[in-house]
């Protein structure tokens, strides 16, 4: 099941990138995708249980528009700060996450780095150390909105909002 999912994804990428639809190239693609799926399907998305893979993929698709919207807002904020550098208030925020597993944490870290004036500096166990560029950005972290959405997308139970405290 997991192998099939990885195989389908790899082959789809192959089709788009090669752009040749004659039997020879299709056969190359099939063989390569099958080989890679056979050898490394255990490495890719190892933590998501196999039956949940399509649901997780669908969750990612639903999560993406919201993330893009947040990225857009984040950029407007940075643009504002570029015009008014006196509004900068750099600070380091620490909070604990309820997400389990490396994949979920990486997704959260990535999303934090992408959005409102925040960069993930380090992840130590459950604790995220985040650099925020202004008060607005730091406040947006404390709501735990992003964590909830990622948990929902990856089919993890929703936790309480993170008990974030500015340091």
């Amino acid at each position: 099941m997991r192998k099939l999912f990885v195989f389908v994804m790899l082959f789809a990428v192959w089709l788009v990138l090669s752009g040749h639809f004659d039997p020879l190239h299709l056969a190359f693609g099939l063989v390569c995708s099958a080989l890679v799926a056979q050898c490394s399907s255990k490495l890719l998305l190892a933590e998501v249980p196999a039956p949940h893979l399509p649901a997780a993929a669908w969750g990612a698709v639903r999560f993406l528009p919201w993330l893009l919207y947040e990225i857009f807002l984040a950029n407007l904020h940075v643009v504002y700060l570029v015009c008014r550098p006196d509004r900068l208030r750099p600070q380091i925020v620490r909070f604990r996450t309820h997400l389990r597993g490396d994949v979920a944490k990486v997704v959260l870290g990535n999303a934090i780095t992408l959005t409102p004036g925040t960069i993930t500096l380090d992840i130590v166990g459950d604790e995220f150390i985040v650099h925020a560029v202004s008060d607005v950005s730091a406040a947006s972290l404390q709501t735990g909105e992003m964590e909830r959405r990622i948990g929902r997308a990856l089919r993890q139970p929703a936790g309480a909002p993170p008990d974030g405290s500015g340091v």
Partner: protein
Amino acid sequence: MTVVGMVLVCGGVFFLVTGAVGLIRFPDIYTRMHAAGKCDTLGSLLVLTGLACHEGLVLASAKLLIVALFILITSPTATHAIARAARRNRIEGWTRGEDR
């Protein structure tokens, strides 16, 4: 579709330029990472999707969208790596009140 593409590309260029200006105006490495990391991500995303719109429904635009997705993953990773390296080397961030 061409018009939509043009608008997206122009928006992308706007964010890229702002990112570059921020890179110069901001005081320390962390705040500069914000300017460089975020504006560049959205800027290149907009430029790529704009080009995809301009091309219309052909294979090239699918490739452009795959590149955009790739940037969505790699760009924050690079930003995080640099910021983390700075932190591990105990580089002090600028705080309010200090000279720039």
